[in-house]
């Protein structure tokens, strides 16, 4: 068959089951086209077929015959389309994995819009309808709206210079960026994982003989690692590697596993009952953790673990209980209590969990993987596979989203390395399909929270209870109550405790602001309820809780400056079908940074290069590093070489805990200052300059000004490495509280935020439409405003997804996951994006290195709670569970039962 791709004829003979993406990626070698959902929902694979945007994952390959196919590679960096330029200039992307699809659809829309409307600006509604077949999990929708509108209006028709606040935007809009799924190596084999279909079982035996006998199968591997117990559906049992994916999948069906199936505890709501099967009846010492690397001490009663942290989380717990009981009985207007529930949320980054592993003999291992922590992963792999770290390389150059779900040595990495060991030196690639990604890979734990609050007559907090029961599947480690207690009013009595209830379901992991949205969901709604009962403004009540806190008070001043908040109607006063409401939540997060961060900065006549073993998951690490150099030297960030994504580089931070920016920006700044001092010396000695000082883009000296480029041209190649300075501890002494080089330290500060959401509830059909969200954070100095804005927008949108749509659903009989495709697991689309208003309070962090701390987790912490309060304000009905779906609204408002 003949087709044309980007003007080039291609002769191909497709397999009957091939779709266009197989031909485009595997035969034409064009990896800019991405497979993400595989079901025509997300649009990442969109190409133009005779100029019509088409999901190449569903288009039969033989239908390509005679067609003109255009992929993202048609518009390379020397032939950029105005739509690409607009995406770069407007931050219409983060991780970049969905970008080729969006750009192709954008180009088609640009053409049709121009034809019908000339150089005019389409509305957000027009764009939302056109882009309805695309999902961006990073939620860069605000930038995408603006990019498409500006491109259609002609703002980029004449632009030829590179306008890109994000330094790797050009690689992402052109499809040049190579993700783990795009790695092409000689002899590459496709690996697949055989996963348990049972939630609780013993593996008695695995028979590989039939699979090994299948032509094209190159390796098989037992993934049980000497253990026999299965504890959740989807747990890896075995792996195969074959010459192609189809053969590997056929081989999986030939592996015979003899399971001894046992009764399972799938349902979180009943797993705490005495007769529930016990998930870890044999080995509680091996329970994994959903927290960021740390295990908690637990006291176990079958599936229920109580974290032994009462001394930290509680304060006179007995007194708290007595006062709450008394308030409930005697002062009901000063008391509120509910049981709140939050469903599990799945990361479902558009690039799935993926790894490519290649053994070079028995003691040299190369790994390419989509990871949030390239540096630490190398140590984990080395330890697990009994190697020295110098025998292992780990690379992760582009990462298609992570959000907390790609930390550490996840199971797909282990599987790829293990099966590759038997593949005779050939590399093996394992990439989750979307079902594996949604059902087994990673998730934010669900939560049941019993919470109560009593206030004193003056509105200050008297006593509070927060007992959280984490639903992290087979894992422990949820810290909802601990987070709530950290920021609770100091004077109040607290009965706060973290429990987990283990179930035979897949493991919980960190997810953007782990456990924080859940505690805000409970506490902020209780505060709102008590304030309403007291007839006190919710802002006034919050001010009383911490009256001298300057930052919190400034944030509350800002809340009161929002016209929609200031002029809001009384709760429940809207009586029509569509009812508007507005709600507030405050938020806090901890300050993490990696004090062992090291950066190497190098100069040569070619320019400046900065190297660090960190990674960019879409947060913009490359750009943050480059911006620090740009801020000091005045050299455009786009003219710098930023080398990351390789574990052999100097130690860099994990992309987690909002620690990347406060780790790399100040360190780059230090390193750049040192480099400039060196270059001035070079200029003095080699160019004979005198009276030198740093000027704008170069050196001021007695004879005038010399640009850095001129100094670099004559200076000898040079490089230096700087380590981040430690933050000050309680006594003002700089200290490193990190427990290991790869572990973050806690700075002695908190970040603070406030979120106000205005929405509309359709009381007839239960749909909630967010209209406006005002999101403020106080984190000190904003280092890279474009990147900060993107995090703030996406924090809101992901938070709205958590509040309104996203829910991991299990079949309770079998333990299988029902929300296992992107139709049934609902993430926010572009049309769900409200107007988002951002505010930064930049004062108060002057003593911190660089004067600023991280914000990306804080940006999402309070969103769901503000939605809950807004729904109550609109309807008088308080939602206790997330997501607040049409069903819960219809039932909550008493219209259906």
């Amino acid at each position: 068959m003949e087709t044309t791709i980007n003007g080039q004829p291609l002769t191909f003979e497709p397999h009957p089951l091939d779709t266009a993406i197989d031909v485009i990626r595997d035969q034409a070698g064009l990896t800019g086209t991405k497979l993400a959902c595989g079901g025509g929902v997300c649009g990442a694979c969109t190409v133009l077929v005779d100029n019509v945007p088409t999901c190449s994952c569903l288009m039969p390959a033989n239908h390509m015959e005679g067609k003109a196919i255009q992929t993202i590679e048609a518009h390379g960096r020397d032939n950029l389309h105005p739509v690409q330029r607009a995406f770069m200039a407007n931050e219409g992307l983060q991780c970049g994995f969905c970008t080729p699809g969006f750009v192709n659809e954008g180009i088609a829309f640009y053409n049709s819009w121009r034809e019908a409307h000339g150089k005019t600006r389409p509305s957000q509604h027009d764009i939302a309808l056109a882009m309805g077949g695309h999902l961006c999990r990073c939620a860069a929708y605000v930038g995408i709206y603006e990019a498409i509108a500006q491109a259609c209006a002609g703002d980029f028709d004449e632009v030829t210079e590179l306008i890109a606040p994000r330094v790797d935007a050009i690689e992402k809009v052109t499809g040049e960026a190579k993700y783990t799924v795009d790695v092409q190596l000689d002899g590459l084999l496709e690996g697949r994982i055989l996963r348990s279909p049972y939630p609780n079982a013993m593996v008695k035996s695995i028979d590989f003989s039939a699979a090994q006998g299948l032509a094209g199968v190159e390796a098989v591997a037992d993934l049980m690692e000497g253990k026999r117990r299965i504890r959740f559906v989807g747990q890896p049992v075995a792996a195969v590697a074959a010459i192609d994916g189809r053969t590997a999948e056929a081989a999986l069906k030939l592996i015979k596993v003899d399971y001894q199936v046992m009764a399972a505890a799938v349902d979180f709501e009943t797993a705490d009952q005495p007769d529930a099967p016990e998930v870890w009846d044999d080995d509680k010492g091996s329970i994994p953790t959903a927290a960021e690397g740390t295990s908690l001490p637990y006291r176990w009663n079958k599936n229920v673990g109580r974290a032994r942290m009462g001394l930290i989380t509680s304060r006179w717990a007995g007194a708290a209980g007595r006062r709450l009981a008394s308030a409930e009985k005697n002062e009901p207007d000063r008391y509120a209590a509910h049981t709140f529930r939050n469903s599990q949320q799945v990361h479902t980054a558009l690039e799935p969990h993926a790894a490519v592993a290649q053994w070079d003999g028995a003691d040299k291992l190369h790994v390419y993987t989509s990871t949030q922590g390239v540096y630490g992963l190398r140590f984990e792999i080395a330890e697990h596979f009994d190697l020295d770290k110098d025998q292992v390389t780990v690379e992760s150059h582009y990462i298609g989203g992570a959000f907390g779900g790609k930390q550490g040595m996840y199971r797909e990495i282990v599987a790829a390395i293990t099966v590759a060991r038997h593949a005779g030196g050939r590399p093996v690639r394992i990439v989750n399909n979307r079902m594996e990604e949604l059902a087994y890979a990673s998730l934010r734990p669900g939560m049941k929270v019993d919470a109560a609050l009593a206030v004193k007559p003056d509105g200050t907090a008297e006593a509070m209870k927060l007992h959280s029961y984490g639903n992290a599947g087979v894992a422990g480690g949820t810290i909802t109550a601990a987070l709530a207690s950290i920021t609770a009013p100091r004077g109040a009595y607290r009965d706060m405790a973290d429990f987990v209830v283990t179930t035979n379901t897949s493991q919980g992991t960190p997810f953007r602001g782990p456990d924080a949205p859940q505690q805000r969901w409970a506490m902020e709604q209780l505060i709102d309820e008590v304030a309403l009962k007291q007839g006190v403004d919710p802002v006034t009540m919050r001010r009383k809780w911490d009256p001298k806190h300057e930052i919190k008070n400034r944030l509350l001043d800002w809340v009161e400056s929002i016209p929609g908040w200031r002029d809001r109607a009384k709760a429940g006063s809207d009586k029509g079908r569509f009812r508007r409401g507005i709600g507030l939540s405050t938020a806090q997060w901890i300050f993490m940074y990696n004090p062992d961060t090291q950066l190497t900065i190098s100069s040569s006549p070619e320019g400046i290069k900065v190297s660090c073993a960190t990674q960019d998951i879409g947060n913009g690490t490359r750009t943050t590093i480059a911006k620090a150099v740009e801020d000091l030297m005045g050299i455009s960030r786009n003219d710098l070489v930023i080398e990351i994504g390789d574990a052999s580089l100097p130690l860099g931070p994990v992309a987690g805990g909002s620690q990347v920016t406060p780790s790399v920006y100040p360190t780059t700044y230090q390193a750049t200052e040192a480099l400039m001092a060196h270059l001035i010396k070079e200029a003095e000695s080699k160019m004979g300059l005198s009276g030198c000082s740093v000027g704008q883009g170069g050196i001021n000296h007695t004879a005038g000004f010399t640009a850095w480029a001129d100094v670099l041209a004559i200076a000898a190649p040079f490089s230096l490495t700087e380590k981040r300075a430690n933050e000050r501890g309680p006594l003002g002494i700089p200290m490193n509280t990190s427990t290991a080089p790869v572990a973050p330290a806690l700075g002695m500060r908190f970040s603070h935020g406030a979120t106000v959401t205005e929405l509309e509830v359709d009381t007839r059909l239960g749909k909630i439409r967010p209209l406006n969200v005002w999101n403020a954070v106080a984190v000190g100095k904003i280092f890279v405003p474009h990147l900060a804005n993107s995090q703030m927008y996406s924090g809101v949108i992901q938070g709205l997804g958590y509040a309104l749509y996203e829910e991991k659903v299990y079949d309770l009989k079998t333990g299988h996951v029902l929300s296992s495709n992107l139709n049934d697991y609902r993430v926010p689309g572009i049309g769900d994006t409200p107007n988002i208003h951002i505010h930064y309070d930049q004062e108060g962090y002057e003593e911190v290195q660089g004067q600023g701390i991280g914000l990306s987790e804080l940006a999402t912490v309070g969103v769901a709670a503000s939605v809950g309060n807004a729904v109550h304000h609109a309807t008088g009905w308080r939602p206790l569970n997330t997501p607040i779906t049409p069903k819960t609204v219809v039932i909550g408002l008493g219209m259906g039962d």
Partner: protein
Amino acid sequence: MLNIITQAEEAQGLRGEIRAGGTDLHDRYRAGVSSGAIVDIHKLVGLDQIEQAADGTTTIGALVSIDTVGNHAITAGNYSGLAKAANGLATPQIRWAASFGGSLLQRTRCAYYRHPDLSCTKKGDEVCGGRDGNHTNGVIFDKGGCSHHHPSTLGGSLLAYDARIKTSQRDITVAELYGDGSEHSRDHLLANGEVLTHVILPPPVAGEKTAYFRSISRFEAEWPIVECTVRLAVADGLITAAGVGVGGVSQIPLKLSNVETLLVGQAATQETLERAAAAAAEGANPLPGAVWKVEMLVGTLLTTFEMALAD
């Protein structure tokens, strides 16, 4: 095994599932819930046209894209309820690629069906996993067996238009295409090797008001909780004719004749609309987890009626 045929009759006797646009089929094959041979019909000649006879009867070829159904002058001008439904389903890419015929014959979107390891009558299992499991978005006009609703938006729309179906073997009504919902292993009643070739719409009704609406949780691109296509003819403030087709509520798309009866001959007022919408709940026998959808059906109908009157 892939057979690419050029005449509809060739399909008879060939083993395999029929593929037109492939948008449903490849989703299922990739997910591992379907397998086996394919009979590709995208090269069948003459099935990509929309034609109107002198008496107004309109024939739509099965290979016409959903996007074309939504935007072609004949359909958009004369059968605007169908066109609005076509424009209101799925996503732009799917509407461009998917065929009209395929949209009527696609397999159920039930999560138990779409999961390779879960039990489903439509995959040949004895037991429907959702009936005793999760059927939050299940049927409220239950026909037994399978517990999930039929996926075809346009099937419901065609019921509102009293359309007919032409296949390589026969000429049947849309209601006959779907049967009474008692065939729990199937989503339509075409025989193996029988190719849906055309949809035939009766002559249009001039000046009728139409609307299509689906209830979902997000802005767009979501399978419906309940969906509705409505046609109303209004003269001198009286509703003179009505067509109401709904989806999301039963194992087959439904035409709500009792609701139509309550509309026809009545004043085009809010009271009439509310009374007729409320009547839709009559006879509902919802699954226990789907009771909430009865109110959604009433609300969705009322909303669609209001939209139609404002058309």
